[in-house]
């Protein structure tokens, strides 16, 4: 088991390295630089600033410098927010992103599993078609359409919820962004649960349980659901990564100073280190979550551990 975990961890390193190289090349290839403005700096000032941030060195040298910092856990100073390091900026934005992301996942699980079970039990009825239809819409309608609609209805028309987030707010003010972020996930979980549930309900052990006279609810609760939820459990890893890293649009629409907004501002400001830092952080997070899922699988299914 330990050897398996170690191998998996080691195999993540080249993936991360590739991500870092690509991201590094891409941010530097973008037109403009971190210190460009309508007020163009005189050459002497521009030289001093470039020297202070080592931007006067060759790209490979800058890359090696960045990498050696990274190995020591140092994401470097932000080029735009000159009083702060990239780690501090990520550290400040992460809690809010985590709160938003985890609440969305929780909502997606509860609502998605509930709807999926319902659709499976009412298989091929109008209810089933309604649930799968709504789920289909949830998957295909992008969040930048759903979120402003939610704001229009619940904040502007009905006035029940605030249109945007502000510092020191109570948790319920996050409700609209949480729902907006959770909707596509709810749709996925619904479809996964429904499929798993239908398969489980048609399996031999459920038929046996039925023959023994068990009620439908007990069958679902104690037998079918466990089997049906296996694909949902394996979806959890990518789903968490998706809501943590993919909240850019939701954060922008609701004015939430999370990782997504930080990333967008970093890109617009050509804050090389900030963009790289967030990319590296998110890549590491996705790799870690996938690793955890793999390890879980390895634990559940010994065949995977065989070389």
């Amino acid at each position, binding site marked *: 088991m330990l050897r398996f975990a170690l191998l998996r961890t080691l195999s993540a390193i080249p993936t991360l390295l590739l991500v870092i190289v690509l991201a590094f090349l891409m941010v530097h290839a*973008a*037109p*403009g*630089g971190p*210190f*460009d*403005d*309508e*007020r*163009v*700096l*005189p*050459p*002497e*000032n521009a030289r*001093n*600033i470039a*020297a*202070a*941030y080592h931007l006067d060195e060759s790209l490979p040298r800058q890359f090696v410098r960045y990498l050696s910092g990274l190995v020591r856990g140092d994401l470097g*100073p932000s080029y*735009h*927010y*000159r*009083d*702060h390091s990239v780690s*501090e*900026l990520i550290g*400040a*934005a992460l809690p809010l992103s985590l709160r938003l992301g985890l609440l969305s996942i929780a909502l997606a699980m509860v609502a998605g599993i509930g709807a999926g079970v319902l659709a499976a039990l009412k298989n091929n009825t109008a209810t089933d078609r309604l649930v799968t239809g709504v789920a289909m819409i949830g998957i295909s309608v992008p969040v930048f359409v759903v979120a402003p609609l939610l704001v229009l209805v619940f904040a502007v028309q009905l006035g029940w919820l*605030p*249109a*945007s987030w*502000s*510092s020191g707010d109570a948790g319920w003010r996050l409700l609209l962004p949480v729902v907006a972020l959770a909707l596509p996930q709810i749709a996925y979980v619904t479809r996964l649960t429904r499929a798993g549930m239908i398969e489980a309900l048609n399996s031999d052990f459920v038929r046996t349980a039925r023959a023994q006279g068990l009620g439908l609810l007990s069958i679902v609760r104690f037998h079918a659901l466990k089997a049906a939820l296996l694909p949902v459990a394996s979806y959890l890893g990518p789903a968490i990564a998706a809501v943590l890293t993919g909240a850019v649009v939701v954060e922008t629409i609701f*004015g939430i*100073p999370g990782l997504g*907004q*930080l990333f967008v*501002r970093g890109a*617009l400001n*050509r804050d090389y280190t900030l963009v790289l830092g967030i990319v590296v952080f998110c890549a590491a997070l996705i790799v870690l979550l996938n690793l955890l899922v793999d390890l879980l699988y390895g634990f559940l299914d010994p065949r995977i551990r065989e070389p």
Partner: protein
Amino acid sequence: MPGRPRPRRRMFAALVACLGILSCSGGAPETAGTLERGLGAEPESLDYHKARSTQAGNVQRDLGEGLTGYTEDGDLVPRAASGWEISGDGREFTFHLRPEGRWSTGETVTAEDFVYSFRRLVDPATASFYSQSVTDIENAGEIIAGEKPVQELAVSANGEFELRIRLERPTPYFLALLTHPSMFPVHRGSIEQHGQQFARPGKLVTNGAYTLMGWELGSLIELRRNEHYWDNASTAIDRVRHHIVNEPAVELNRYRAGELHITDNVPPEAFERLREERQTELRVAPYLDVYYYGFNLTKPPFKDNPDLRRALSMAIDRQALTENVAGRGEAPAWSWVPPGVDNYGRWRFSYADLSQEERHREARRAYAEAGYDSDNPLQTEIRYNTSDTHQRIALAIQSMWRDVLGVEATLVNEEFQVLLSNMRAKEVTQVFRSSWRGDYNDANTFLQVMLSDAPSNMTGYSNKEFDSLVAQAAEQTDPEDRRRFLEEAEHLLLSDHPVIPIYFYVSKHLVSPRVRGWGDNVLDYHYSQHLSLSAE
């Protein structure tokens, strides 16, 4: 503008400070309270020498204090210095610091502190954006270029409270420059102790009306009254919270909900309604910032073609643009230097006083003289950075040029950084949108950007006569002579048409009726120390 009850407010603040109680009969009483201000985007730094955004400046003006400063109406006044003498040749300034000036630690603010700060500003290792603004000080340019040590900077202390600054040339706006946060003193002890982190809450030592209590990234910068400040008795408000709100629409919602007393901006789509609903709260004032279209003068069709440039300028109906498209009280621009600049009588385009009909006729004539007509129309591109307002203005100008002259203009929308690098490269740009904001209240801040060798001259405009007039203005010690040279330079610039000034921006804020002491000024500076809050 309603009269501001400043002396009464001062007295009141002193009374509150002395008694520590608040009791008032008749009139709205004032409270020490907390001022909630919208700030806009997150400041990139609070280190005076490393920041450059307006947002950073707005917070820094609450924290620190330069030798000079402004009143709420924008009048220049002594602050950290109580007075000064200027030598006959206009090159040597002797400032007398206030002996009662204190850091937030209680230490005395000395001339040596200013020497240290000016040296840090020009030190290449500091990598400051704004060190360029002190190149008028003797040796500053060479120090920034790394050719001389910082000790050579002509800023010296004579005793504890006398500061001498020697300039390369007479600089009449030097006193106005000193109001800029990059000229505020930094506290040597805390920089030596904390290094790069000295401008953080709990570490930043300030000499202004407030100290830095907290900085919650992405949401809030919190200030508290500096008890050691020499003029603390005049400060009415105890706490100031600068809220970071990127979207003006979000800011407006928060103002409406009573969460903010002052907004940093007003969203264009809400402006008309607010003008009716909150007439007294909406504060719109002229601002030293010009919105312009620049021409790339290094390539055809605009190179060596002033008739064409003039025709395009005349074809733009600025009145219609400011009223119907920009629509937030902007003023049509008929000159390059905005109105409201001190000691300056503006030149205007020769066609400024014509009717739009007459201008259109003139435009068609100039267009024909430039060699274009309906069979051979000008084909060009207008480049602008992504924004609703810029797009609407570009669309309007595109259609004005088409209707009046038959010009076939295509719109090219680019991300800000992409547009900037294209403007600088002068390879693909033809007509581009940009703006120029004055750093201090003087015509020079607008004219110097059009010098042949000015780094921010994106048009490639190069006129030796213009350069020489601006240079001669800089040599004058008599303000009237200087003014004449500057005005002549602008006159030349306007007739050359390297740019089309379209409108002058206005500052726009919503200010709660509870806020007292608010003054409109062309620099849009609103020090919290000048404000007070009436009780709800």
